[in-house]
């Protein structure tokens, strides 16, 4: 796994420690796919769940030179 993907994974785990996180490549440079499984999403809407994950990596997506341009696919599941 490339360094940036490790960084993303670590940032998500910091916010959601019990999560199972898979960060994969997306459609091009700076694009990624993210799958997160955690009971924390129980009862949360898709918006709330995604906001939780995106909030954890928001600092990596900020500005023009950001290492993360886009998340092509973000899946959050409870199990």
């Amino acid at each position, binding site marked *: 796994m490339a360094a940036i993907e490790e960084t993303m994974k670590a940032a998500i785990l910091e916010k959601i420690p019990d999560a199972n996180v898979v960060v994969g490549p997306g459609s091009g440079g700076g694009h990624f796919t993210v799958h997160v499984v955690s009971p924390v999403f129980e009862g949360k809407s*898709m*918006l709330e769940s*995604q*906001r939780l994950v*995106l*909030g954890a*990596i*928001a600092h990596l*997506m*900020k500005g023009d030179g950001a290492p993360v341009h*886009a*998340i092509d*696919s*973000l899946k959050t599941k409870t199990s």
Partner: protein
Amino acid sequence: MSLSDQQREQFDVLVKKSKVVLFMKGNKHFPQCGFSAQVIGILKETGVPFETINVLSDPAVRDGIKEYSSWPTIPQLYVDGEFLGGCDIVKEMYAAGDLQKKLGVVEKPVAAPTITLDERAAKAIKDADDGSGEHLRLEIGAEFQYELYFGPKQAGDVEVQASGLTVLFDKASAKRADGIRIQWVDTADGGAFKIENPNEPARVKSLTPQELKKWMDEGRKIELFDVRSADEQKQAQLEGARLLDDAGEKYLTALDKKTTLVFQCHHGMRSRSAAERFLRQGFTNVYNLEGGIDAWSQKVDAKVARY
């Protein structure tokens, strides 16, 4: 960066600028990112009026809106001032019908399209099915791009039976699918699906030299136009091709709009532009000879000189 109260109030106003506001990259006519384009496509499907705000034209808005919604990506959709989500969520809400509810549009139920699957296509699909319980899905994009694949059933899907198979369409695709025909055709590397769709707008169709030869042998009624210069035509010429000079142009313009037109040049580039031009003038059966006369002499008739 965190927003001051004053900035927050400015965004409060901005997101309520109209009932539906989309913060996006580019504008509704020229979206500059694929995710923004997808949301525009969905909003257009619903038929509701909407306002777009191009974040690329103002860095303060671009950064500020992310802060305002605690959402780090663009596009962002707001309805009645409420943040609904980005591309993924909007897509999911549209498929489930939730977006339509929020927008207050009553969606007419999408009629199941009538489709034809020829025997060989059905067999190819059955052979490819790995038995995982996924269904065949056909997506038809706004520009009539096709994606045929196995995938899970999703909320709002329109289900169609053909040749003993179930084919799933999302609602937007279903609207573009009535009367389609899915065939399996032989190609150089085995075979491929071929989709004929009567809902597709007219476009320039490709013709190989071999196909043109077949048409000529069958005596099919076509009008063949050579868009090269008279000098080039002296070097090599296709039988029956009419030079598209002033006289040729006049002749063509007077033809019935349903006439089968074939355009040809040296390598197939100039003839394509000419074909596009006559398509815009309302001709509906317009073909481009791919590879031009050069491909003709290599594939069909070596006696036609190459230059």
